[in-house]
């Protein structure tokens, strides 16, 4: 990985955290913030924006603004769950590979290489089409393919921790690998794992939106990607409805990804030993 030339100011990280906090609040308070139940057919289909429907209605008369607000929940949830899957796998692989070294390390890292070089999006599309639509499938597909990068980063941190005095001391006193790893190594990689988690979540949200847009997510669930899916299928780009049907959802996806990315880079710079050297 390229070393960044200069450290970012924490201000950007704070902006990112602010965005995430706001989105988190929106997701949490969705039922109170949105004017309608997003599944309720509130009005006639294909209405342009008005006082009653600030972003108009969709192809079966559901309020787009409410869909957008509730979509925050689904998108964040899937992003975070996918990141959790990816991080659990990545941390496990990184810990084992970094701690044991030798043939185990070689084997696991070659596996990581394979996953890293496989073209990501086509494989995700293939798997999603094979497994069928559904929230859990989406989570598993994204999580199951996004663990390689965190695994690599965590492994390098584990290797640097392995030779620290307190780790060696614990080993010397007969600590079993499970004890040493969970008691001494894991706490050391936590901050880094957190940064990786945040970045993976941003990635997950983007991939979920892409899959749903292609109709490979769960089309019945209200996510930003599925909103875009229906907008595209029902002629939003031809009728001018894209201004209130496509643009807001696209902006929300961009904003969320931006928030996660800013926070993730900021955390990464604080905790990644190789990036910290630049200060």
């Amino acid at each position, binding site marked *: 990985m390229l070393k960044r030339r200069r450290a970012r100011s924490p201000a950007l990280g704070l902006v990112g955290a602010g965005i995430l906090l706001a989105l988190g609040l929106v997701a949490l308070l969705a039922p109170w913030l949105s004017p309608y139940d997003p599944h309720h057919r509130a009005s006639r*289909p294909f209405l342009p924006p008005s006082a009653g429907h600030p972003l108009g209605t969709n192809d079966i008369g559901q309020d787009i603004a409410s869909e957008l607000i509730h979509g925050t929940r689904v998108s964040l949830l899937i992003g975070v769950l996918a990141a959790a899957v990816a991080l659990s796998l990545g941390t496990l692989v990184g810990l084992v590979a970094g701690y044991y070294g030798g043939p185990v390390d070689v084997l696991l890292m070659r596996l990581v290489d394979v996953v890293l070089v496989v073209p990501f999006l086509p494989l995700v599309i293939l798997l999603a089409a094979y497994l069928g*639509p559904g929230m859990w499938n989406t989570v598993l597909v994204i999580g199951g393919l996004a663990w390689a990068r965190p695994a690599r980063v965590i492994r390098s941190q584990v290797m640097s921790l392995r030779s620290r005095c307190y780790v060696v001391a614990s080993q010397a006193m007969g600590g079993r690998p499970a004890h040493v790893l969970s008691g001494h190594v894991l706490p050391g990689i936590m901050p880094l794992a957190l940064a990786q988690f945040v970045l993976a979540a941003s990635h997950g949200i983007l991939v979920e939106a892409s899959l749903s847009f292609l109709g490979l997510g769960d089309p019945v669930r209200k996510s930003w990607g599925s909103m875009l899916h*229906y907008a595209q299928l029902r*002629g939003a780009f031809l009728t001018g409805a894209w201004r209130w049907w496509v643009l807001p959802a696209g902006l929300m996806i961009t904003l969320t990804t931006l928030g996660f990315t800013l926070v993730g880079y900021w955390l990464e710079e604080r905790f990644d030993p190789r990036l910290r050297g630049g200060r």
Partner: protein
Amino acid sequence: MWKVHRWLAASILLALLVSPATASGRLRVGLHADESTLTPYSYVTGDPGYNLLLFVYDTLFQINADGVPEPWLVEAWAWSEDGRQLTLDLRADVIWHDGEPFTAADVVFTFDYVRRYAHTRWTGPAQAIERIEEAGRHRVVITLRDPSAGFIYQPLADQPIMPKHLWKDVTDPRTFDGRIGTGPFRLVEYVPDQYYRFEANRQYFRGPPAAEELVMPIIKDSTALFTALKAGEVDAVSRTLTPELVGEFSALPRMRVVSGPLTVTYLLCLNNQVTPFDDRDFRRAVALAVDRRDMVDTLFLGHARLGSPGWVHPDLPWYHEELDREPAFDPDLARQLLDRLGYLDVDNDGLREWPDGRGMTLALLASSHDPIRLRGAELVAAYLKAVGLRVNVVVMERASLSARIGWGEPDHDYSKPRNYEMVMWGWSAPVQSWPGRMLGVFHSDHRNVGTLNLQGSSDPLLDTVLEQIVTTADLERQFELARQAQRRIADTIPFVTLLYPDGVYAFNAEAYDGWVFVKGQGIFNKLSFLGGSPPAPAAGPSSGTGGRVAVIALLLLAVVAVGVAWRRRLAVSAR
């Protein structure tokens, strides 16, 4: 980078291809699918492939604008007393595109050929023939195994006649590129995935067609297809307008929008072989709970007809009119029926339980390929919830859904039990082309006759009526039997017929307005070019503006992309 170049090249090519025509009589029609080389064995889909095939080939009878077959390559025909023998006198003034005369030998050859080399559409119907013989240069005598009322519809008004002199030695029909027919147009150029070009057959026996030249660029993406029509890059398209675009296109000057009935059906299919749908009263409650008027207004913005309880489209001559008068949407009655059947809400959560008190959730399958079916499933789930039934919409990919319900597998045994509760389904237009097709949808012999009987219903009384339809040659009597069948279908409710979408077509009326709407099938057919006035010279420079704007936008995009990539490369090398 390579990708950007390819994009540019492709868009410039497209812009050139669809640039305004200079020659008069040229018409540009956007095609929504690639249909290969257009022989009876190589075309791909029913719509638009089959219609396109009939630009090049002719059938013995031709379905006219009312949806009824009329003699085409045939001049006169007569049935024998017992209804098994048909004598056809062919027209003597027909020639193939290569100048050879068309004779009885070609007709006999065609039916022999399709019985020898299997094809999903041609072979089955041709098996009704016991013997087919030449009885003169322009006379054919066909003997059937059994009297058949639908024989004129299919195969005679369906089977394109192939030239014997070209096909007689062909043993691998699927790869043979023999595009010679007797039809109004000759296919002169076909570039896979790009376009077709047809020229008028000036020797056509019904007079030269109304367009000198037809250019058909293949544009698979529906948004791109309608954008091309709106921008004036094509004069018409092969596909119906989606409901939300009707207003948009009606408001455009130059553009005309016509609409008419299509016999395409949207169904809520119920598996009659599993509880609770094996109970007629339960199916009736479901049918009463579904607000079909609301579905027509919401899903199609009114551009559809209400589903008839007897399944048959209201514009067909054998439709049973009295079925209209019966209550169709009555949620209160549905609730009463469910109460009476013992499906009560014992735990007071607003949703009913099974009669034994267990929680009840019904699964409604919907294929992800069709947004209308997905949205329809959402609506149905809401209607049923309103009468207290909990419905879980299960979205599946098209192929896995078909595999799950056991549809469309060549070696599938349709007499096996079906593995679903409810599914959003639909049949294409030909399934209502004549009353005899009801046999496939409703007959109890699922293995041999009722091969479209997805709902798995069986009703001996209905079977008897249906079996009479196919052996009755008298049209009025046939229609009367079809009405009896509809009465029975409305009473037994094997499934819920939701709606029939209208065919709404938009075209540039300044370029050509001779389009003919064939009832049940739309405007994309050869009748549209026989008998109209020739197309006007293509519109002036204004029609190309949309394309040019798009190309300029693409160019700008490419410049930006190149710039960004270059800067990134610089930045990387600086590091």
